[in-house]
């Protein structure tokens, strides 16, 4: 006799006593309250993160006020701190990452959903998703020892040479080729956001009803016309959501950037020059920070970073949620 049948038998034979009902009632209440408490813990966690960051950054904002956000100076000796250079670095590296990452990710998603032979679809999706699983420190060490020397020797001299005579561009791509710097960090980030944007985009591309695509093909549309005039308009919110998700990752990415950014507290006109980002700055200096004001200035940057990513991620989630509700109501 198996155990389920045994239990059923014993239940059938036993009388349901008030004490048993009470016992079950207690267990029910226990589990309900435990799960509820755990759910509320998640909320408290976010509250705690915000509170502790705010509390930790009070000394910095008291000392420097709003100027903290607009000052480039970062001098631990005289204890004058401003977050402009890291904020600039964070935004510019993420911008480069998006500039390269978005078209490539969309290309991969189009390839997987429209071009790829069926038998190749799963392996390629898996490979792209494995890229997402690789820890950021691996990208960092690879960026430092493989990508940077390659860019320094082959790509950056070419860029500098090409734009040497062109106004504006010549200062944007001014030499010397360091290898490490804002540009390299942007490229590493573009590789890292690729799997995130691709997997979301592919998923939302697959929600497009086959009938819609088939009717466009039936009218004689080319693959690109189907993608640009049917698939993309239909999935716009989801694609933007995926891009924002990738942007959130790029903004907060720490280790990969720390390896290749060069950690220079200045805003250079050239994007080939070393710089710093908020996360790299914290990772590099936090354990060595002496004194409350120094530590607090770093925590304040963490608060700024969390604020920016919170807004970006919240916007991404809202867009994906809207799409989910729409496709949910249609099914």
């Amino acid at each position: 006799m198996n155990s389920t049948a045994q239990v059923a038998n014993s239940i059938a034979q036993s009388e349901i006593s008030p004490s048993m009902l009470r016992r079950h009632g207690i267990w029910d209440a226990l589990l309900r309250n435990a799960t509820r408490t755990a759910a509320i813990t998640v909320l408290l966690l976010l509250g705690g993160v915000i509170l502790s960051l705010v509390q930790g950054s009070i000394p910095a904002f008291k000392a420097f006020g709003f100027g903290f956000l607009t000052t480039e100076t970062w001098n631990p000796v005289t204890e004058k701190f401003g977050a402009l250079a890291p904020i600039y670095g964070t935004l510019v590296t993420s911008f480069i990452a998006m500039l390269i990452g978005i078209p490539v990710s969309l290309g991969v998603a189009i390839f997987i959903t429209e071009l790829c032979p069926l038998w190749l679809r799963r392996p390629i999706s898996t490979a792209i998703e494995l890229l997402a699983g690789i820890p950021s420190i691996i990208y960092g060490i690879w960026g430092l020892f493989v990508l940077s020397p390659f860019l320094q020797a082959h790509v950056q001299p070419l860029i500098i040479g090409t734009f040497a005579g062109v106004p504006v561009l010549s200062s944007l791509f001014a030499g010397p080729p360091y290898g490490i710097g804002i540009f390299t960090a942007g490229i590493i980030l573009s590789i890292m956001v690729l799997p995130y944007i691709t997997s979301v985009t592919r998923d939302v591309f697959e929600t497009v009803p086959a009938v819609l695509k088939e009717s466009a093909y039936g009218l004689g549309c080319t693959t690109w016309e189907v993608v640009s005039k049917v698939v993309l308009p239909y999935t716009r919110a989801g694609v933007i959501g995926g891009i924002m998700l990738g942007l959130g990752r790029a903004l907060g990415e720490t280790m990969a950037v720390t390896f290749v950014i060069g950690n220079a507290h200045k805003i250079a006109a050239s994007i080939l020059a070393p710089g710093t980002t908020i996360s790299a700055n914290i990772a590099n200096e936090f354990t060595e920070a002496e004194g409350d004001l120094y530590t607090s200035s770093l925590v304040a940057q963490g608060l700024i970073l969390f604020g920016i990513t919170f807004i970006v991620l919240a916007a991404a989630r809202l867009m994906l949620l809207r799409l989910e509700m729409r496709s949910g109501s249609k099914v």
Partner: protein
Amino acid sequence: MNAAIYNRRRAVNGVIMVLAWFAAASGIFVLALILGTLLYKGLGGVSWAVFSQNTPPPGSAGGLLNAIYGSVMMTLIGTALGTPIGILAGTYMAEYGRGNKLTMVVRFINDILLSAPSIVIGLFVYEMLVVTMGHFSAWAGGVALGLLVLPVVVRTTEDMLLLVPDSMREASSALGSPRWVVIMQVAYRAARAGMLTGVLLAIARITGETAPLLFTALNNQFMSTNMNAPMANLPVVIFQFALSPYADWQKLAWTGALLITVTVLILNVGARALSTRTSKS
């Protein structure tokens, strides 16, 4: 039909399709390049010494034993902390509070925590534990990792429990099972493989996490089993050794990087195999 327009449409399509092919190929190429470099640079350093000796002083050979030990311990603590809370929270969202306001808010917040910068979690744990305790410790590192496990487990638990057909719960209820028995004996059992997948993915995520450990567990050049003191761990050792000028240290960094990547890939592939097997059955 106008031949010029037709040709132009065909040309545009052709160019973009070639670009899409190129994009996919370059994605695969980069993955292959990273894995290839890791194998090339890391395999040479793999020896028994890596697993039997501690991290060496600058300029001499050694191993990663203390770092591996620290990483395993802190991953265990993180998993042990994050998993139960995550499963309970996910259970509430899928079983008790399905669709209510608390669930909607928790899901939204959880999704944000899921992709929040891990270095911010490190700062939080620093402020909460390191400052109040007065020193860096392996406990703080474990807690920081636990906070990263939590959102992953919450998300997958909820998703997997929602996949369990309601008819199974109703059948169990009709037999007279109280709610907690329905959840523990029916829902959990049906969603077990999926929930395990979530835990594996969470472990894979924290295995390589560096940023939150930098100023919680810090690092330790020696073997330490004291959870109340700074403890070596693979990611931070890789970070420190890779940026050092010593060839021995850099070699160990590559070996450590290979170890972490292999672990993470095995966990990922395992989780994937588990979830496809259950989705087929």
